């Protein structure tokens, strides 16, 4: 039994490593094959006036004139030693460039995620409790509307209302100049981006959990519990929600990269110094090393969260196990 478990987790790790490998090769090749001049990001405007010899020399210096496969092997070797190269644009170690900004994104994404996690659970329960009554219907309508509004537009509208007209909240940045350590100031700058991150995702997950609970409420054991004389509250919270929780956790595991990735647009509208804006820049200006690390980070997060959610599902419900499903279907075929 123990061995089987080891093999099970070993297989997960293998799948994870293999996916990461494929992802890294794909991103490496696609980034380098995409037309564009990487020298622009290093030398700026000057790169256009360079003579062919100078270009040759610069490419050599940055290690860009070797075949891509050789570059890739070199990159992997260095990366395994923790050396991810320098950013062409910032002329700093990529880890430093990212390190300076990742905190902001984690703050925005992290708080956003927690709010979404708690809020959608709450909303879902409220909607399921009041199924097809007024409150449920109003919430559903509002939710549908909120899911139809592009996030950049609602950001603009909020800026228009709160910054331009009411002058209550700052419209950009993570803190006002000279106030980097001031927590109140930072919080004030977080209000609007955070609202948008939450609004954009909240309903999607709330609706999902609402439907999950509604399905659960129609299972036979609920009838039994009711016949036994338990009241609605007890059945709902002690039985139904408890049964729905694992499925919810697995959904939320997939939601982590979604929420973090969803900060991209918000960051660029509010010129909030996070890694979303950084990835956009690096892809646009061919800052290869920076791009590579950022892609790997988000890719690893996605793959990892997917595997976690799959594992949760399989642990709760052995029927979900992929290989058994295929085995079963093969039995049927024979």
């Amino acid at each position: 039994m123990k061995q089987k478990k080891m093999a099970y987790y070993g297989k997960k790790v293998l799948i994870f490593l293999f996916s990461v490998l494929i992802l890294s090769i794909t991103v490496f090749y696609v980034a380098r094959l995409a037309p564009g001049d990487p020298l622009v990001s290093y030398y700026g405007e000057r790169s256009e006036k360079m003579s062919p010899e100078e270009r040759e020399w610069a490419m050599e210096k940055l290690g860009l004139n070797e075949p891509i496969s050789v570059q890739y092997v070199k990159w992997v070797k260095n990366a395994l030693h923790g050396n991810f190269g320098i950013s062409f644009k910032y002329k700093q170690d990529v880890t430093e460039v990212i390190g300076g900004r990742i905190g902001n994104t984690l703050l925005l994404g992290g708080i956003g995620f927690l709010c979404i996690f708690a809020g959608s659970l709450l909303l879902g329960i409220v909607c399921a409790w009041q199924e097809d009554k007024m409150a449920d219907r109003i919430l559903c309508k509002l939710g549908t509307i909120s899911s139809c509004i592009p996030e950049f537009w609602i950001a603009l509208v909020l800026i228009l209302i709160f910054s331009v007209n009411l002058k209550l909240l700052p419209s950009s940045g993570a803190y006002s100049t000279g106030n980097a350590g001031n927590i109140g100031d930072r919080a004030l700058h977080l209000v609007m981006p955070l609202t948008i991150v939450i609004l954009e995702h909240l309903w999607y997950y709330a609706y999902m959990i609402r439907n999950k609970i509604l399905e659960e409420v129609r299972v036979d054991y609920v009838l039994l519990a009711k016949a036994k004389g338990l009241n609605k509250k007890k059945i709902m919270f002690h039985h139904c929600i408890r049964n729905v929780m694992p499925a919810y956790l697995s959904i939320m595991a997939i939601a982590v990269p979604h929420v973090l990735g969803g900060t991209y647009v918000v960051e660029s509208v509010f010129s909030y110094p996070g890694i979303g804006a950084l990835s956009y820049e690096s892809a646009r200006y061919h800052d290869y090393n920076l791009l590579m690390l950022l892609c790997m980070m988000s890719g690893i997060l996605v793959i990892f969260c997917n595997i976690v959610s799959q594992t949760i599902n399989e642990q709760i419900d052995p029927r979900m196990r992929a290989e058994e499903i295929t085995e079963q279907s093969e039995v049927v075929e024979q």
Partner: protein
Amino acid sequence: MTERAFELTGIRSIQETVPEKKKKWYQGKPMVSVAILLLIVLGCVCAEWIMTKDPTYMDLLNYNKAPDREFLFGTDTMGRDIFSMIWYGGRISLIIGGLSTVISTLIAVIVGAFSGMAPAWLDEAIMRFTEIFLSVPSLLLIILLQAIMGKATVLSLSFVIGVTSWTSIAKVVRTEVRQIRNSEFVIASRCMGGGFFHILWKHLAPNFFSAIMFMVIMNVRTAMMSEATLSFMGIGLPVEIITWGSMLSLAEKALMTGSWWIILIPGLFLVVTVLCLTNIGNACRQQANRRESNL
């Protein structure tokens, strides 16, 4: 006497069917949404007859004007009449939404059906591939694809959005196909020598069509929203090509002057269109017959 031999003991009582009240044809259908959407689409198609001004003409004397009798929705920071731009630009927004959905649906159906019909190992490989494809941030993918395709045009942008948004439909198609791939009619068709595409269009597609209908409509709205987001961020269509998204790319300037009409009006049109599409999509998703709640 002979009848006794045939007497049934436990006859199931025949349920009396209460004649249902005849529903009017429009009941249970999102008529309001359909009407509004039709109105917007019609307005965009017949833009030439509605426009009061030339939408591309930059009237430098009247730039950044609030809505008034001459300029119904005001003018933008480049002096173009927003009322005319809405109808004229909506056309391109709608075309991008439709075109990219066609592209993504095509890819999704082919990949999903192929994966569903393939042997288990190939199926597994394809599904892993789609997962990896999903894990590359789509914004990054779009930027890279745009760089490869050169200057953004309506066609290239729809292609890029289409290519990056097929995965979820493909998954649904795959599950549906796996369920029906061993049905007699598919096997019979195969025995008679039907090719992959013949089986796909004649036998599989009609079966999963209703399952993906909802997602296809949702894709139209996602495509329109991504077009707007991309154009707004300056990676999509340039300001000269008028769409609802590129109209919003002037928003930064509008914020500084506090001209709300430049931001609100194109956005409202986008949101209303998308909302109508969502309502129609929701109605398309066949309401599963819910049993009475046990609670």
